[in-house]
């Protein structure tokens, strides 16, 4: 019954950074809004796009703030922040506690444990972003439990040299390719 594409999980926070949200959608929306505001205000003040590390720290301290006072409740969602700045591409994850780390690969939300295990098996330094997109699709399909979980919609975005260092939705043809590869891999697994 749900219209395809209406449950956006990934948001662009600036041209060089994007954020994926897991958990309570409304809480996630607040975090994204704050991130966008931090990114634009930094650029207005300092005249350069906000370094991703700085953006992560600002978001993390905002999320953490909501754990300090009895009259505020913690955010019910965590986010994964990906961006490309002058120090190269970077990935950060901010949890509801306000803790934030930089990662080469990470997962959040339902099924994250299994996903993390799968990611650890990948040789990230030897892959291009394009190849990574395909691998990630396989992992998502692999971790999804047909019996227990509801139907899902795959949403992917990337930021790499190929995307001209801008955050954008993965092009339709690559998304199709990834979905096909993932379904094929599932069939191989089921066949065993």
């Amino acid at each position, binding site marked *: 019954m749900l219209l395809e594409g209406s449950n956006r999980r990934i948001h662009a926070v600036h041209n060089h950074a994007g954020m994926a949200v897991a958990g309570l959608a409304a809480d996630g929306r607040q975090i994204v809004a704050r991130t966008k505001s931090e990114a634009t205000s930094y650029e207005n*003040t*300092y*005249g*350069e796009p906000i*370094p991703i*590390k*700085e953006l992560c*720290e600002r978001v993390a301290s905002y999320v953490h703030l909501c754990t300090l006072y009895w009259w505020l409740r913690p955010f019910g969602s965590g986010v994964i922040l990906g961006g490309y700045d*002058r120090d190269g591409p970077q990935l950060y994850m901010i949890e509801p506690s306000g803790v934030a780390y930089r990662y080469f690969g990470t997962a959040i939300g339902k099924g994250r444990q299994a996903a993390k295990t799968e990611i650890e098996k990948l040789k990230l330094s030897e892959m291009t972003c394009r190849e990574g997109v395909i691998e990630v699709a396989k992992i998502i399909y692999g971790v999804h439990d047909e019996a227990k979980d509801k139907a899902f919609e795959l949403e992917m975005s990337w930021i790499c040299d190929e995307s001209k260092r801008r955050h954008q939705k993965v092009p339709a043809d690559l998304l199709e390719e990834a979905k096909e590869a993932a379904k094929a891999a599932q069939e191989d697994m089921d066949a065993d």
Partner: protein
Amino acid sequence: MYVANRASDKITQLTDNVYLCRSGSAADSQVVSDYVRYFLHQHIIQLGQPATVKVAANLIRQLSYNNKNMLQTGLIVGGWDKYEGGSIYSVPLGGTILQLPFAIGGSGSSYLYGFIDQAWKEGMNKEEAEALVVKCVSLAIARDGASGGVVRTVVINSEGVTRNFYSGDKLPLWHEELPLRNSLLEEASSEVEPMRA
């Protein structure tokens, strides 16, 4: 116009790797540089790495533009950072910001535009560039009544910062102007032979 000190140091440090050339009202330029040094310091602590010249120049520009009604100071920001290498930003009176391969400012600079357009070359080395700067300032001193005293230079690159000082009497003369001489009172009292013109 009143010149209180013709040997003042008009090249002030903003951070280890970024310096500011001040001109116009001394008070205004000092206050702006103090604010920017303070903001940059906080920025560096937050960022955890040295500031870029672009960020320093933008902070200067913001103050200059937002307070344009009250300030009267032309500023040139120069420095080195690991992303862009050496860079120069000019922030003149109204608060525009312009990145340039070379920049000039101050009252004496009016006399230098033609000269430097012809004399500046891409890819000069450190010695050539410094010699050009000293020549420029001495030419300005020759023509501009409000310029004079000493020449100070600061060289900033990946290796660090070097300050140099060229005293007024050592500078070349261009138009047969009178050479710098000591105070006549001093000469009269010590009965030293006056310098020949």
